[in-house]
């Protein structure tokens, strides 16, 4: 099968391309970033998904399936540009897919879609609306891209659309929001709060995407693997140091003393749980994860061992 991957040069995109090539598929990648270490056998086009060149690739290659991974998720990059990539890029992917005979589009979204709040339930199901945009406006473009992708289900009924909301990924490449948050030796938490974190090993995410390509489930699906665990467990099992900080001093400490910089709206995501019910996806595809929560944490820890004390220039109290 010919599979086109917009956003192939990302860490997860590369893993997906490798797996698809190994499974005997023809993989064509689009990315505006250079991709010098592209896996052998992957045809790469260095072009912005929103530009004419990307449409040319669709026209010439005529892929049967598209896995859309060209969304910017780094919340530190807050700019007009990000909005345009996430929304304009998603629109381009669906329009080109319809115009050039693509049979199946997979949109790779995130479980943070549902937002974090004190009164939001554990294990969100797909029919729940997003509640977090009010407190975390940085998420708005990702939420909008997700809903836009979902609208393809009724706008383009001939096109099979799978909108996936995957939990955090963790693994040896250090891909993803959670991995970025855990990168340093010290991880800040809110004193008195210990939300559940839902994550899965990056190779299981790849398996979920490949399974989606094979089974072509139509609709919106949460994708998860093992059960969620408390943030304190995540920090301990990855060998990090938990630095509980009272909420009122938290904003002024971020980005200092070796603590990661995260937007103020993201505080709710380390205060309240965001977990999903992925049973619909399992039912539709038969997906089974391979790595349990401890395995994923161990894989991250082995790839990113905590820096020895003193390695960072700032010492936290």
């Amino acid at each position, binding site marked *: 099968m010919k599979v086109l991957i917009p956003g192939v040069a990302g860490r997860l995109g590369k893993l997906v391309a490798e797996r698809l090539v190994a499974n005997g598929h023809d993989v064509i990648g689009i990315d505006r970033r250079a991709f010098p270490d592209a896996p052998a056998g992957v045809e790469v086009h260095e072009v912005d998904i929103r530009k004419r060149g990307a449409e040319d690739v669709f026209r010439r290659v005529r892929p049967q399936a598209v896995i859309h991974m060209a969304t910017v998720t780094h919340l530190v990059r807050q700019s007009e540009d990000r909005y345009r990539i996430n929304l304009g890029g998603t629109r381009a992917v669906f329009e080109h897919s319809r115009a050039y005979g693509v049979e199946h589009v997979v949109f790779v979204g995130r479980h943070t879609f549902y937002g974090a709040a004190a009164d939001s*339930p*554990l294990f969100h199901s797909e029919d729940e609306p997003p509640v977090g945009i009010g407190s975390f406006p940085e998420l708005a473009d990702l939420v909008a891209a997700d809903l836009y992708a979902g609208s393809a289900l009724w706008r383009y009924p001939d096109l099979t659309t799978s909108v996936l909301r995957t939990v955090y990924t963790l693994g040896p490449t250090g891909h993803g929001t959670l991995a970025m948050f855990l990168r340093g030796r010290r991880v800040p938490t809110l004193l008195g709060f210990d939300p559940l974190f839902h994550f899965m090993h990056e190779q299981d995410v790849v398996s979920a995407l490949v399974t989606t390509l094979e089974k072509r489930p139509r609709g919106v699906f949460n994708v998860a693997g093992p059960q969620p665990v408390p943030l304190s467990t995540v920090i301990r099992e990855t060998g990090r140091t938990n630095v509980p900080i009272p909420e009122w001093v938290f904003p002024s400490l971020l980005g200092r003393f070796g603590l990661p910089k995260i937007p103020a709206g993201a505080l709710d995501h380390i205060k309240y749980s965001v977990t999903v019910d992925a049973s619909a996806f399992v039912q539709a595809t038969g997906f089974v994860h391979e790595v349990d929560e401890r395995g994923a944490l161990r894989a991250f820890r082995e790839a990113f061992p905590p820096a020895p004390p003193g390695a960072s220039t700032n010492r936290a109290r």
Partner: protein
Amino acid sequence: MRVSFPVDSEVRERLEQLEIPFNADGIDPFGVSKAYLGPSFTLLKFFFRRYFSVHTLGIEHVPQHGRCMLVGNHSGGIALDAAMVSASQFFEMNPPRLAHGMAERFLGKIPFASQLTHRCGHLTGLPEHAERLLAQDRLLMVFPEGARGTAKLFKERYSLVHFGTGFVRLAMKMKTPIVPFAFLGGGEAIPTIANAVSLGKLLGVPYIPVTPWVVALPIPARLDIIYSEPMTFEGTGFEEDDVVLAYVDRVKKRIADLIETGRRLRRGDVAQLTNSGPHAGVAGGAHT
């Protein structure tokens, strides 16, 4: 940060017997943690077995396995009733069962309180949580009087306030038996003479109960928990209000009867209930 508290050996043993899918770290999918249950039940054991004089009747009516809802009255200005019912399920059932309470929503916003309640199995009181717990064949503890019930004053301690209908609809939808129970003595342990609403608002809670000794510290009173026979209501949970209200009234009536029985027991009018008594449902030897 890992602080270890002493855990009683009986509690440790019973934790191992809980039929809950804990992972290797002792955490279940809902975030319930053995590391929190251990110290919590160790503390509860002291109150359950030594501090209060707790009399339990009819615990054999609680199914040993499978989904079930324990539905009872509120008694006492703080969650003393829920704590003792959960202790009774943990220490008097064989194998022990973990009773999941539905925590008041305001707790979720309070540092430590949200963490402690959640790790001990008391999720925020949302219908979604109740359904998911029952779908996993857990034991749910429900107080249909809600916060209105805990706000009862000393003189109102044996009365029942308005019951919501949600619990019956939930039981019908989830095909779950209801085990009604009465809790007596909470009002004596924590005699509320007033509720400080304004002070509560300042602290982010609905109210602060005020006792003759000002704070809501319980005195070592006699407490009675009387469970009765399971009640099952057929249906989908989407029936008209009048259908559901009739079922709610039946549960409420049963609980009111149980309270009456409990009062007679406490007065010493009857030594022990028998199968032939007016409330045959509660029959069973007294466990103390």
